[in-house]
């Protein structure tokens, strides 16, 4: 445990989990903006829009955290991954860009709300596309199709487009779509809360079915991953994830929203932890171990020393941010042109 490579790998995994929990919910908000249904679809969209406003930029800094942790602690792995996964990462980047820009334009522009169909549509499409491609990229590390020859990756499309990664992309989307409405149930009241509750339950079922399908798929398409996930201690994470998912559904049925929110986050944490545990001890399954990909020891130690110092500033600030903007989402900015 005290080995700097293991600790750095845990930091990387933790960063990915945080990105899924915060950035993922953010994407999910966009997905449900596209999927909103029922008589209050408009109100749902507006609540999501206002809830994302103050926190989206912070939510997406977690992605930069993951990238920086990857190239600082595992530079060799970073180089290999970014060579092989160039296309999905470029697509994800374009998505992140258009999503951020569309959101900012809509938020700070003269018109707000639904009157901006172009930026609204861009936001929705990018919210679906980005987690899908990121999910593909992440699951490609476990699919076992990336091959290194003399330490150099062979770049072929099959390395990242295969049944396992396609399903990984769909699961990525499902994780996002699952978190957003659960988080919203805590923040709104009345009929709107019932709407988000319904969406949460549907998304929970979808995520459950998809991750369950992932297991037999892995058995045929990513055998090494399946063997490590189901054949040893990582299976405990599968058990935790399933229990947590079931608990979330039950809590939602009984309208215990605060606990449901925690259980939903737990489901995602255990799902990703299971993924990371089954990848262990590799960064690229079967091809590149974490140890071989890792930076020299002094770099890892410096990295691990910087983290708690940074966290000392970051965590209270994060807490202050989410605490300030807790409760009912509301337009926090006056409409353009109405400033003093």
């Amino acid at each position, binding site marked *: 445990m005290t080995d700097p490579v293991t600790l750095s790998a845990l930091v990387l995994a933790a960063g990915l989990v945080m990105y899924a929990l915060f950035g993922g919910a953010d994407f999910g908000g966009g997905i449900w903006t596209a999927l909103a249904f029922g008589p209050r679809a408009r109100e749902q969209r507006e609540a999501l829009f206002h809830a994302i*406003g*103050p*926190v989206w*930029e*912070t939510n*997406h*800094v977690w992605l*930069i*955290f993951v990238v*920086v942790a990857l*190239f*600082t602690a595992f*530079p060799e792995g*970073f*180089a*290999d*991954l*970014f*060579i092989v996964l*160039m296309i999905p*990462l*470029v697509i994800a*980047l*374009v998505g*992140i*860009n*258009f999503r*951020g*820009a569309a*959101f*900012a*334009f809509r*938020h*700070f*522009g*003269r018109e707000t709300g639904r009157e901006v169909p172009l930026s609204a549509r861009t936001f929705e499409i990018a919210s679906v596309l980005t987690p899908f491609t990121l999910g593909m990229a992440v699951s490609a590390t476990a699919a076992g199709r990336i091959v290194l020859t003399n330490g150099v990756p062979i*770049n072929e499309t099959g390395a990242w487009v295969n049944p396992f990664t396609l399903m990984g992309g769909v699961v990525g989307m499902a994780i996002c779509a699952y978190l957003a409405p659960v988080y919203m149930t805590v923040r709104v009241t009345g009929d709107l809360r019932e709407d988000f509750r319904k969406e949460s339950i549907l998304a929970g079922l979808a995520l459950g079915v998809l991750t369950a399908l992932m297991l037999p798929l892995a058995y045929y398409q990513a055998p090494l991953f399946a063997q490590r996930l189901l054949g040893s201690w990582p299976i405990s994470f599968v058990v935790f994830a399933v229990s947590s998912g079931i608990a979330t559904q039950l809590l939602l049925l009984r309208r215990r929203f605060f606990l449901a929110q925690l259980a939903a986050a737990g489901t995602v944490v255990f799902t990703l932890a299971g993924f990371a545990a089954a990848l262990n001890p590799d960064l690229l399954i079967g091809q590149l171990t974490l140890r071989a990909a890792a*930076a*020299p020891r*002094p*770099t890892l130690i*410096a*990295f691990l020393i*910087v983290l708690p110092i*940074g966290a000392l*500033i*970051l965590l209270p*600030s994060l807490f*202050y*941010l989410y605490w*300030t*903007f807790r409760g009912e989402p*509301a337009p*926090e*900015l006056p409409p*353009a*042109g*109405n*400033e*003093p």
Partner: protein
Amino acid sequence: MDNLISARALMGVSLAFHILYATIGIGLPLMLMLAEGLALKTGDDSWHDIARRWIRPAGVLFAIGAVSGTILSFELGLLWPQFMAFGGPMIGLAFSMEGFAFFTEAIFLALYIYGERRLSRRALFLCTIPLTVAAAISAIFVISANGWMNTPSGFSMVNGVISDVRPLEAFFNQAWYHQAVHGTLAAYVATGFAVAGFYAADLYRGRETAHTKKALALSLAVATFFLPFMLISGDWAATSVAKHQKPKLAAMEAHFHTTAGAPLIVGGWPDPATGTVAYAIEIPKLLSVLAHKDPNAVVQGLDAFPPGDIPDPRLVHPFFDLMVISFFIMAAAAGWFWWLRWRHKELKRAPLMLLMIASPFGMIALESGWMVTEFGRQPWIVRGYLRTSQAVTPNGGLFLVFATFLLVYLALTIGILRLLLRSGGAGEAGGGGEVHSD
């Protein structure tokens, strides 16, 4: 376009784009802090109104800065994987620390922008302090990575393999000190002038509101305060480059031949084939004075280095001159403004026009200074250790990636312009200068 050129073009366009927004992300927080501080201190609420007027454009510009920064962090791996595999262990520390600073910046910016209804006025002001500090620190940290590319340190090479990595030494590399000071202060000057230009334009067109003159004075005060430091830190940078990055200095100054008592070459077009500079003005011995504080000192020219290891002065010297000229344009505009103010004279159209002309030159100077440091390091990506051509990704089709992102940047630019220009005409600074719909 071959792959290397495409990769360099994409990296260049991405950084040039990001630098504009990152600069505003450093400079505007300071101005927000000053305005909110003045409002609290003087009890004059118009300062608060001025600051709140900035948040709408600021929100968009910060957001674009964040997404374009994300693109850059990916491009490090997408375009230069070999560079990251080589340099990651040394520059990772700088980026990790920058990450935390950027996190802090994003958090307090959100609190400031969206907090009007939920936080007290004092709390809003207090939020601008960590915002300003974190913004400056994130620039200072990330510049360490660039400084390391210019003056790599903190590792040993044993038989072509990196060993004995010392991350702290890499972080505190030689070029970092002057680059961090010069680059970060430049952001304040550039933002100050950019904002001042919009208010000057409002005054010029007779669209003055109650706040225009105050806002103009504040933004120009910030810019003017830091302007002399640009000269001082610029001189420091030049003497330091003269000592530690000799080919870069030679390219900056279009100095082809090693000579004692070297003249300073102003303007002109350097011709590497003949080793001459056409249409240039030469000031005798000044380069020796500036570089080594001795009129008879020997300054090494580009001929002192192997031909394959030197930058192309045609890409460096003109940008260096542009940076220096920008300084004088801004100094003239600011000087005229403050002189009139000091003499209590009316601000007529001519000085306002000069301010409007000078307003983009902070950004122009910053961009050209960055061109100087990047083109001046070529053909190396890590000076003396790794060539740019060795660092590029083995993937083909980079032209397509370049074209894709060019379209992305084009779309973003169109969106921003539409938004800023439509939001009332006064754009960035005014954020609706003449619009009073309530």
